[in-house]
């Protein structure tokens, strides 16, 4: 189900424009509020839904298999690390779901612009930018070393 913006809630902050991986969240030239310029190209990743501080972006099914009249609303609580969904069916039934949204505090991941620009000779390296430091390998859990029967550690 692609996303759409409730313009009465949107305050035109532009967070959805920045985060949309498909670059289809744009700013309306007349009302200066965000809107989905091409719902057909929406990946339905819901990044904009989760990023919107005003809870102004909702999702809506295509009319051929999800007739209008239902509601799918989202509330993101970044301090609690939770996102909640409330589904209201056309016949009035409601369902609610709550999920953890991420495992690290909101805003704790550094954007690429916060890192130093890689040197030109980094192009020849097999590592991606800022690896291995950015991978934080030392913080990952590790398995115990494998030992063959009667053998020594490799």
């Amino acid at each position, binding site marked *: 189900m692609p996303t759409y913006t409730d313009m009465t809630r949107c305050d035109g*902050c*532009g967070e959805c424009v*920045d985060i949309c991986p498909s670059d289809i969240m744009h700013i309306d030239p007349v009302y200066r509020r965000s809107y989905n310029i091409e719902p057909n190209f929406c990946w339905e990743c819901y990044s904009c839904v989760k990023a919107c501080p005003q809870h102004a972006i909702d999702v809506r099914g295509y009319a051929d298999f999800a007739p209008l009249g239902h509601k799918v609303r989202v*509330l993101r609580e970044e301090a609690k690390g*939770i996102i*909640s*969904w409330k589904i209201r069916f056309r016949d009035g039934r409601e369902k609610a779901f709550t999920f953890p949204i991420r495992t690290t505090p909101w805003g704790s991941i550094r954007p690429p612009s916060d890192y130093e620009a890689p040197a030109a000779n980094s192009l020849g390296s097999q590592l991606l930018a800022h690896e291995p430091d950015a991978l934080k390998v030392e913080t990952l859990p590790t398995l115990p070393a494998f030992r063959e029967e009667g053998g020594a550690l490799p």
Partner: protein
Amino acid sequence: MFTSNPFFVLTDFLPVFAMQAYIILMLVAVVAGTLLDTTHKGSALFFARRREEAKAAAQRQLSGLETASLAARTLAEAAVSGEFCKWKRRVSHLLMMYGFLLYVMTTIVMVFVYPADAQTPIILPLLWDLGALMILAGALWFFFFLRVNVVHDGDSPFHVGRADLFVGSLIGSTAFALIWHAVQTVANPAVGLLFFSLYLFFTTLLFVSVFWSKFAHMFYKPVVAFQRRVEEADGSSDLPAPSRDSMR
């Protein structure tokens, strides 16, 4: 220079009645523009229908005290522009909002109470200038550095569209108001008349363009915000209730 009633010099060639009639005409233009705007877009009808639906879906009736409390909280939020999530836009909006209130209220008092009085209390023209300066500071900051299409959508800071009609006419009105006030005592009357004409043009544009601009937001935004609070309180909101759990 900034302690004199700026409208006093107009009495040389304009009757007081004309100035007062102009202000009344502008008030009528704002009311008519707002009504046309909400009717044309269907937003009033949409809002009324949504309100009826919310009433039908309400899980409990709010008492008068609860409704009054929600209204007070809505006003408190509007007074500090609490609806904005970014502090820069919030500060810019506060400068424009309180500047506009000062600018309009002092204009009305000076034109209706002291139009031909050279002894206008000094505080009035000072507040008029302060209001205009506050609007100018907030509006220029917003126009060049905070507009969402400039910051997030890649438009040039000099890109102008219909969405800029309100802020553009506000900048024009206040900028030429200040210049006109400044040149009243230091320049010849022709220069004063030129800047007065520009001030009058942009001020008229600001108030007669309500149908095409976002001027009316100052009336319906608080109403919609109040309705949203009511829906959250009586259980008719489509938004999920805040979770009692924490994943952290």
